[in-house]
């Protein structure tokens, strides 16, 4: 199974590298969208999947990252490589500020409190016109410069995002297998036991929450420079719910699941467009079907079917 995972990961990276040569321009755009969104989903995987914090406000942190980079690059003319770290720090700092009081809450309280933060963020973004441009949003966000070359076509931007996704996935994997990652899982599985085994539960929760939000911020920065336009409605709480759907549908609360879930939820409604007026209803139905057929998500189903496919017995 271990080898299989490694081979799977390598195959996925190779497929992702050659994909732009095979995809139509429209599908390439969707692939790029999936890539930068998946960074926020990986973030949620850390906070929820491993630490058990039901964080229903990723869209707000995507928004903070997007606004930070958009404001700095349009008003001060700073480049992406300066604004992106600021976006990361900004979303991390906001997360830190709200984490301390909020992480005392558990389960659904936390989820709905963060959801409330998301709604409030939207209202502030709409009304703080001087900074955020209000409803009209921020237009003409400049393209990313990569060693002096403008990345303004979809194919190059795809590779830029792919690079970030690989880095984030590797970072998350390293975290998962570190002392911190094990502590996080311990918290999810049994907070009481983790508390007694001298792991600072609160500190770990804050760390997970802040990391998740920083990844969302990075996702937002990449979104802003891809769309070149942002407005408050891009960061509605409904998007936070979608991000959770992506993580659960991908399955097993894993990195691979996070990425797979994002790709499916991004592509599925677009592919269903041929159904005309019915496509959104069919999309809702398909989400249900996937859940019922694969209650542990797609990755979970693959793991379950693996022995049957290979004819070998494995212990998962």
């Amino acid at each position, binding site marked *: 199974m271990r080898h299989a995972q490694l081979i799977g990961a390598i195959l996925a990276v190779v497929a992702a590298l050659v994909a732009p040569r095979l995809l139509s321009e429209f599908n390439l755009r969707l692939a790029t969208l999936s890539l930068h969104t998946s960074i926020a989903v990986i973030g949620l995987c850390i906070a929820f999947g491993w630490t*058990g914090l*039901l964080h229903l406000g990723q869209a707000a942190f995507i928004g903070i990252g997007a606004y930070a980079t958009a404001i700095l690059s349009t008003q001060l003319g700073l480049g992406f490589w300066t604004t992106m770290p600021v976006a990361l720090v900004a979303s991390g700092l906001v997360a830190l500020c709200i984490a301390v*009081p*909020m992480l*005392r*809450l*558990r*389960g*659904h*309280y936390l*989820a*709905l*409190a963060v*959801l*409330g*933060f998301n*709604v*409030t963020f939207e*209202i*502030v973004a709409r*009304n703080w016109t001087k900074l955020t441009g209000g409803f009209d949003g921020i237009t003409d966000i400049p393209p990313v410069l990569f060693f002096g070359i403008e990345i303004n076509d979809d194919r190059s931007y795809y590779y830029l995002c792919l690079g970030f996704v690989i880095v984030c996935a590797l970072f998350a994997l390293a975290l998962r297998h570190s002392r911190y990652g094990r502590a996080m899982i311990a918290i999810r599985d049994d907070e009481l036991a983790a508390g007694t085994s001298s792991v600072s539960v609160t500190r770990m929760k804050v760390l997970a929450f802040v990391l998740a939000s920083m990844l969302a911020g990075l996702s937002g920065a990449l979104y802003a420079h891809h769309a070149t336009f942002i407005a408050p409605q891009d960061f509605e*709480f409904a998007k936070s*719910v979608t991000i*959770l*759907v992506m993580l*659960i*549908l991908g399955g097993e609360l894993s990195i691979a699941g996070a990425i797979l879930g994002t790709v499916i939820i991004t592509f599925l409604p677009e592919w269903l467009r041929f159904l005309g*007026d*019915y496509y*959104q*209803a069919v*999309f*809702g*139905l398909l*989400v*249900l079907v996937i*859940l*019922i057929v694969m*209650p*542990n998500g797609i990755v979970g189903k693959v793991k379950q079917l693996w022995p049957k496919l290979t004819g070998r017995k494995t212990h998962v």
Partner: protein
Amino acid sequence: MTAQIIQLALNALAAGCIYAVVALSVEIAYESTGVVNFAAGQLVTAGALIGLSAVAFTKANFLPAYLLVLVGMSLIGLMFLIFVYLPLRRQSVLTIVIGTVGVGIFIQNVMLMTWGPLPKSVRSPMGSGALKFGDVSVSLHVLYVIAVTAVLIVAMYLLLYRSSVGRQFRAMAQDPEAATLMGIRVKALYAFNWILVCVLAGFAGLLFAPMWLVDVTSGDNLGLKAFAAIMIGGFGSVPGAILGGIIVGAIEIFGAFYISSNFKDALVFASMFLFLLVRPQGIFGERIADRA
């Protein structure tokens, strides 16, 4: 000025009653199964739109029309039970929560195809009359909303705390395994639960539509407000959900009047934070502790 405050209080109470009934629906689903129902808003809209068609079908004969809504919402509840809840019952609660997101998208778009996107007005069984007390004007429908909400609350109380069904229901909520061993028919109770959840949401729809018009997205906002209401009132508490709903209605309307209409929704969520910080368990607290 006093007249204005009474007027606003009445409107806040009417809005609060609607939020309270939606919150009650969300609360019952949560308390008995641990599921946060993200389709609540869409179920409310469904109640309103089925009501619209039923009133037209029965030629404004309200009793049979309401019965039709009752049947329709029960069918939705049963379908949710059979196609979503039972197959996913053994999975983590969150899988079912995501299931409700899928159900919400599905119901919303089926409604869009059935009733179209345009807003519609719905008749009230009370007609369109209003009572005037000096400068205060209150429509008969608003009084009707307040009365029906009161009746629903009392009925829920009797059902949950004073009947054998209610006892079994609460036993199931605490521990389904033990309840099964005690000979409680858990599946029938689950059916009862989801029917109740949908019927309550449907009632909220019947109540709000004559006041506020209805289109396929009407319920979305009500669902969100119901979540705020539950946060304020406290998860796992039926009286908390009701009081929370009324508080949210009051914050909205008095916030818009005294502070700023720009930030009235932000005020609702700011107060929610405040409640969480000061009293994380809400006003009435959670009886079934620590659901993750």
